[in-house]
């Protein structure tokens, strides 16, 4: 994937592969789930990069590799120039503080027995940061930062709304002053109006703290507002990446176009006119040959079922892996006034 502009990226993922051996069923021992198959991705300091794709495309698995919750099968992950994917405990310990995960369902990531004050304080206790008074002050500061009124501090998660619970999870993730948040569908379980509040909060934290964000989503509509760059993932691969405006206004990969078309527009005068993506994402145990998208692709050509398309570069940031997009770019240079797509 394209580099963030300027300087060494905060996070650099190169050729990361994650395969899960199959332990049950008829395929036991014989095969593996190819959840992530050679991903390159970079996130700059203070940058917001979104990772989108249907469920099962490998987004969460990649996110877990990045936060160190699981080990990649192959590939390298550098954080601030230091390799963290395989290396020494020391480097990892420091890295763990600087990269924090936030999950989709705050109910399952928060301890139901603990008052939220304790949940937010927990990382400070674990890393023995400051004395008791300093920790209490820091908890108040964090609650304030995420917009939680102080009077809620003794409430249990069940006594809070979904939006408030997600604020608690974000406050706890911020306790150790990380440089990068890996947020896996942090608003998918929330109401539209509450989604907007949490998206605003994340944008605001990025402004105020210079925090970088890898924002995982299955829905393109929520990321457009908040992202600098977007990477689209399909069946373990990044199929297109670019700046948010490149990906939204000039998508090159048919899968990206299908994802954009599938957003139900809040406009009854524009109904069902767009093409539908047929079928479902195939099993990552036996991914299709050639381009992994070819069985569902509306514009596939002969070569698509045989050759794996390489990334074609469209601009300094914009890339896509598609035979047809690559061919159209070639013809486009001869016909400069034609639009790139259909």
């Amino acid at each position, binding site marked *: 994937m394209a580099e963030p502009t300027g300087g060494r990226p905060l996070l650099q993922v190169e050729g990361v592969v994650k395969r899960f051996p199959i332990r049950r069923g008829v395929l036991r021992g014989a095969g593996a789930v190819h959840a992530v198959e050679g991903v390159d991705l970079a996130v700059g300091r203070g940058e917001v990069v979104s990772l989108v794709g249907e469920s099962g495309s490998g987004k969460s698995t990649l996110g877990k590799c990045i936060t160190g919750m699981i080990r990649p099968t192959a590939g390298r992950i550098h954080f601030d120039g230091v390799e963290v994917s395989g290396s020494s405990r020391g480097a990892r310990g420091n890295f763990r503080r600087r990269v924090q995960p936030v999950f989709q369902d705050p109910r399952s990531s928060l301890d139901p027995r603990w008052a939220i004050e304790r949940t937010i304080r927990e990382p400070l206790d674990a890393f023995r940061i400051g004395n008791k008074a300093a920790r209490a002050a820091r908890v108040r500061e964090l609650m304030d930062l995420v917009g939680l009124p102080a009077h809620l501090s003794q409430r249990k998660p069940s006594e809070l709304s979904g939006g408030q619970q997600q604020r608690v999870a974000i406050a706890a993730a911020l306790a150790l002053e990380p440089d990068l948040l890996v947020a896996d569908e942090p608003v998918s379980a929330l109401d*539209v109006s509450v989604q907007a509040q949490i998206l605003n909060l994340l944008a605001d934290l990025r402004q105020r703290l210079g925090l970088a964000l890898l924002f995982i989503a299955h829905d393109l509509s929520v990321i457009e507002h908040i992202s600098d760059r977007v990477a689209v993932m399909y069946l373990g691969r990044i199929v297109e990446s670019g700046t948010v405006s490149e990906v939204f206004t000039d998508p090159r990969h048919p899968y990206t176009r299908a994802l954009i078309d599938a957003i139900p527009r809040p406009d009854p005068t524009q109904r069902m006119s767009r093409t539908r993506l047929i079928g479902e994402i195939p099993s990552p145990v036996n991914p299709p040959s050639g381009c992994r998208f070819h069985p569902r692709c509306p514009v596939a050509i002969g070569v698509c079922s045989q050759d794996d398309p390489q990334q074609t570069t469209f601009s300094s940031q914009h890339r896509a892996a598609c035979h047809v997009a690559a061919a159209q770019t070639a013809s486009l240079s001869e016909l400069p006034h034609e639009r790139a797509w259909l």
Partner: protein
Amino acid sequence: MSDSLLEFRKVSVDYAGRGGTVSAVTDVSLTLIEGETFGLVGESGCGKTTLSMALMGLLPDIASVRGRILFNGSDLTTMTESQLRELRGDRISMVFQDPATSLDPTFGIGSQVADTIRAHGDVSRKQAKDRALGLLAEVGIPAAAERYADPPHRLSGGMRQRVVLAAAIANNPALLLADEPTTALDVTIQAQILDLLADLQRRHGTTILLIAHDLGVVAQICDRVGVMYAGQLVEVAPVAELFARPRHPYTRALFDALPSGSHQAGALRVIAGQVPDLAHAPTGCRFKDRCPSRLAECDETPPLAMSDSGASIACWLDPATRAAGGLGPLAIAGESNG
């Protein structure tokens, strides 16, 4: 005048919870016309599911229902459990957000569709199976015969929702109640299921009550839309009218909070304040504490009243509401030569 299939008349539902009585639905009056797709929208907790469960007679014991719910003229609220059971899955069927709640994990998907057919019709096992196979194909299950005996967990979420739909339409219901049927699905699969719903509606003329919180979903397949806020129905309008001219301040706030689709910087608009606690619901308009245009009369409940545009609004700013509530036109501040 078109025929009404379902009519809610001043329906209220309270839950006698430990923390006090929750007024989940308050005085909702609404008529569904035969053959239409009606969308019910509103934020989480505003009473959409409660209203639909009241219609199905599936509320928990701690709930009490007031008002009348007329289906083809008969009052569902006074029917016995066995009368209701006869209607459910037959004249009225349902689809929920989580297909797991509708399917039995231990039985094959095909036999679950066939069972629905046999429960309400005098058909042989063989006939039911043939019809179930036809239905599975109709809702887009590939190789339906091979998958007939598969338990639900072998299927993806989207395929399970198709099976639930096959069972739901098996007996040609007059009314299909779909409570967030696509919320748990990917957008790509959601688009397929919405197409399928629209298609089933067109072919069978089924009346659909679609509950959703996503205005995009409603825009795509509904004919009319009702907006609920904190247990009250605040606006009902033909879909084109609602999206072109949302009138109730809450409806407008909902539209403003949509991620606009512009990748420009700047904060998304949000609705200030919180949904009121329905155990201590405020009197009058329940939106008043968050409303940017609150008036003195908002301490009284505004009646839902229909205007010339075909839209009904329950808001004291609206001329039709004011007329229905016996109030004069609103004096507009700064207006001269009124």
